[in-house]
């Protein structure tokens, strides 16, 4: 179970797969001694980012001071706006990034320390960029709104990615997240209108589960190529929901396509914390459900018997079978649960957010969720981080386009690329090599 060590990397590498409860089953490469080339390469890259910040952003920043608004609306405790001088702040932040790079050059950070250094560089750069964007001084940078929108945009992605985790950790590739979400969104809107939002939520989960069961039956029992199967299921979902929309919803929109949406519920005490309170603890039930699902999957996958077995089945089904785990049954179960979660992800769009279904409402978000899963190294936490980052970059795209006077004009077409570009860089810089569960996409045939 070891990857061939690349010849240009002379470091000693030990890779372990720990299967005892309490440890992540993931191949961890522990660099005992980092090669000089790698150390210098990363260091130089960080220094370059710092220099771009100082020279590119710092010198082009407007002469005004940047104002950061941390209040979400005019409710709750109001914080004063934070005003900082534009150019100076950007340059100081840029110099900090350069210092991190120099530190890396000298000390050769590795493992977790390097990861944290990467996160620090990313954060410093984002703050510098926001300062630069607001440095014309005419509009304040709405930090609270930016984070609110991040969560709004990321919630369906996170749920979709969790659906992917459920399936792929157990060895079934789920390309059909998009289709499952579409069905969930449709069922949520339809049953949400007819019988109330809670029924809509349950219906979305059920119909998502049915789609998951289809995926499970064809991939596990009939051994159909899982990627192609996913594509087919997506086409099926687009076609059927589109047809049903025309046949049912378009005829009587009031009676079938005007579900109520869940209203925000404020958690006492926690909801009163400035900035974080309204952001995290004054949300609707779909967001709380998302927290719960992420936490449960994250804990269960590592700490429970089910999690151990799931990971074993996803990594080495034959070994799992040998010790008496019912491989196929576990796969069926997990793929169907995954489908349910994807259905809920779809419902997060209709009854969780906008209160109406339209054809193709998911608009490719299922695929973004799939990407978040992969960028997040097939772990719940990683997928959460990747989905949040994508949501943030999308919210940032909108926020930037609303500045009437950016120091430099940016094309709307270029801005439209931002979420994808930023995610790519973040993945390349922070995530590095990713490895799927070993048996992902491999059907298991006994014998």
């Amino acid at each position, binding site marked *: 179970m070891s990857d061939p060590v690349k010849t240009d990397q002379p470091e000693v590498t030990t890779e372990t797969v720990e299967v005892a409860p309490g440890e992540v089953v993931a191949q961890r490469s522990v660099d005992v001694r980092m090669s000089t080339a790698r150390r210098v390469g990363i260091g130089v890259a960080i220094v370059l980012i710092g220099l771009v910040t100082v020279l590119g952003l710092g010198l082009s920043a407007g002469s005004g001071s940047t104002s950061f608004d941390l209040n979400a609306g005019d409710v709750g405790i109001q914080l004063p706006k934070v005003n900082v001088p534009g150019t100076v702040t950007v340059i100081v932040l840029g110099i900090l990034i350069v210092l991190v790079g120099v530190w890396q050059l000298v000390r050769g950070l590795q493992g977790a320390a390097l990861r944290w250094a990467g996160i620090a560089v990313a954060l410093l750069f984002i703050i510098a960029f926001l300062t630069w964007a607001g440095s014309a001084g005419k509009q304040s940078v*709405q930090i609270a*709104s930016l984070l609110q929108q991040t969560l709004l945009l990321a919630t369906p992605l996170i749920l979709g990615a969790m659906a992917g985790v459920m399936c792929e950790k157990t060895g079934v590739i789920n390309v059909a997240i998009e289709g499952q979400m579409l069905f969930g969104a449709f069922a949520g809107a339809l049953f949400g209108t007819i019988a109330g939002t809670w029924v809509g939520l349950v219906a979305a989960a059920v119909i998502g589960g049915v789609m998951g069961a289809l995926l499970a039956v064809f991939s596990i029992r009939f051994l159909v190529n899982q990627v192609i199967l996913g594509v087919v299921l997506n086409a099926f979902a687009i076609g059927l929901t589109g047809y049903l929309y025309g*046949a049912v919803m378009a005829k009587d929109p009031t009676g079938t396509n005007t579900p109520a949406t869940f209203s925000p519920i404020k958690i006492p005490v926690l909801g009163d914390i400035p900035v974080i309170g309204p952001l995290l603890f004054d949300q609707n039930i779909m967001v709380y459900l998302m927290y719960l699902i992420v936490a449960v999957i994250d804990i269960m996958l590592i700490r429970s018997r089910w999690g151990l077995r799931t990971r074993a089945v996803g990594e080495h089904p034959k070994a799992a079978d040998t010790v008496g785990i019912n491989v196929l049954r576990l796969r069926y179960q997990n793929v169907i649960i995954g489908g349910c979660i994807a259905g809920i992800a779809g419902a997060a769009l209709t009854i969780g957010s906008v209160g109406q279904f339209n*054809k193709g*409402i998911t608009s490719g978000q299922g695929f973004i969720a799939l990407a978040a899963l992969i960028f997040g190294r097939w772990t719940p936490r990683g997928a959460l981080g990747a989905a949040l980052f994508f949501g943030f970059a999308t919210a940032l795209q909108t926020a930037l386009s609303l500045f009437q006077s950016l120091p430099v004009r940016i094309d*709307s077409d270029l801005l439209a690329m931002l979420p994808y570009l930023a995610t790519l860089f973040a993945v390349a810089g922070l995530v590095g090599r990713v490895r799927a569960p070993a048996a992902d996409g491999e059907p298991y045939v006994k014998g």
Partner: protein
Amino acid sequence: MRSVMKIAAVTAAATMVLAGCGSKPGTGGGAGGSGSGSDSGTGTASGKKISACMVLDTGGVDDKSFNENSWAGMQKAAKDNPNITIKYVPSNSGTDYTPNLTKYAQGGCSTVIAVGGLMGDAVKGVAAKFPKVQFAEIDNSNQGVSNIYGIEYNTAQGGFLAGYLAAGMTKTGTVGTWGGLPIPPVTIYMDGFWEGVQYYNKAKGKNVKVLGWDEKNQKGGTFASSFTDQNKGKSITQSMQSQGADIVFPVAGGAGVGAGAAAAAAGGKLNLIWVDTDGCTSAAQYCKYFISSATKNLSGGVETYLKAASSGNFPTGNYIGDLKNGGVGLAPYNQFDSKVPDALKKEVDQVKADIISGKITITSPSQPK
């Protein structure tokens, strides 16, 4: 296992056949489409018998937007004059345009009407191959071809009125507009809106700001990159609200409905102006947030064309819908009727009259020529 697979395969095949039937209601008489106009006609037959065929763009006949409205014009013409028979075919993607147009041009249609400016090249190509068939294209000029009739709309004029109205109604001094994609049929509305606000500022000595679009910077602006992603639409609208906007003008089809959700979440602090159709009809559940709508009378344009065609001679050149001929305009204020001050209503009417008389010049580069 084999037999189960066989049953599954047969079922799947049967589903596809059924789905195939479902996707062509124009010929089968399914959802809303009626294959022959004679049985539904209530008007009196006049003129020549013509068969009018419509190639729809993606989105389907029930898109509550340009496909549906264009088809409504066909239905109205057929109802008034039983000599006009109508049918349509939807396009599932851009690659369907040419085959659909060719099929209808070959299939005995006297006129083929293409819906949407995206079909421009396809229409030009097919029209050259079938010089005896009369074509018409909505949202595009005739491209200098004699057997194409262009049906265009100067929606900047309606957008101008919407901008003036928004500037007059805002309490925060900031309004916003955003689009689906940065393409001329979208940005022309945003141009008009922007100009309307500037005109208001100049006339009143005010300084109402426009978020999301600046006519002088055609490469900027705020876009959802989608006409279907409602959640993104909601997010954009809420971001505009956080920057102080209290009236937003979304130009993004289905994605724009998300702005309605943002308005509902804002609980009255944010209102909207709808686009293309009267919002109180096409997105009725958000009617109480719609101050008005900048409309584009697609059905009227199609109907006028068919009436002229059935009288014997197919019209040539281009039809440009504007404020003067009612092709574009401002919808009723509906639930805002009592909230819009009478003085402002009069001013909007005056601005409309000034645009028609040419006293106000609209400078949008996307206007039809």
